[in-house]
């Protein structure tokens, strides 16, 4: 079945990190982490991004490390 429009978010089908095992989840790779943040700099929920719970946890730590080091904002504007 194709992903459908359901509610406000299009459900992503599978976890990006399960599909591409070579993608690092590293606080230094800011460009990639940014894709999982809202434009206000908040972390996006799993239901929005389709990331599995295991990788969401890893992402959360990486984002928090990046924030601590001033690589990512805690909030924007």
């Amino acid at each position, binding site marked *: 079945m194709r992903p459908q429009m359901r509610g406000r978010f299009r459900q992503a089908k599978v976890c990006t990190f399960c599909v591409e*095992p*070579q*993608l*690092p*989840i*590293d606080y*230094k790779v800011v460009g990639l982490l940014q894709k999982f943040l809202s434009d206000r700099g908040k972390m996006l929920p799993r239901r929005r991004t389709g990331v599995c719970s295991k990788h969401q946890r890893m992402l959360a730590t*990486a984002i928090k490390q990046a924030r601590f*080091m001033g690589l990512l904002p*805690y909030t924007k504007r």
Partner: protein
Amino acid sequence: MAETKAKLYEAIALYHPDLEEETIKERAERVEQVVREHAGNLVSTNIWKKRKLAYPIKKQAEGNYVVYRFTGDRRLLPDLDYILRYDEECLRYLIIDVGRYPGMTRGTQRTEVSK
């Protein structure tokens, strides 16, 4: 009694934006010295070019990042912590046990294989 196992660590330090490249290198040498003293091995030192910070840290809007990767046992960490903590020009630092974050080593083997 038990020998602690050598682990791979990563330390990232954020230095004051006004530091000259030379002074940063001196600091890097100091870190290397500490690692060596404890029979550790500095794997890499990566000096990033000056970067804008996402938010001001200690009133600075930019900073110089240096990423150190080294192996050694955990007994060297307090000494490393000490030199970074009491370095006035070091605005912030983070020391990480790379093995605890599997996301950081993802795909490293794969890229080697495909080459």
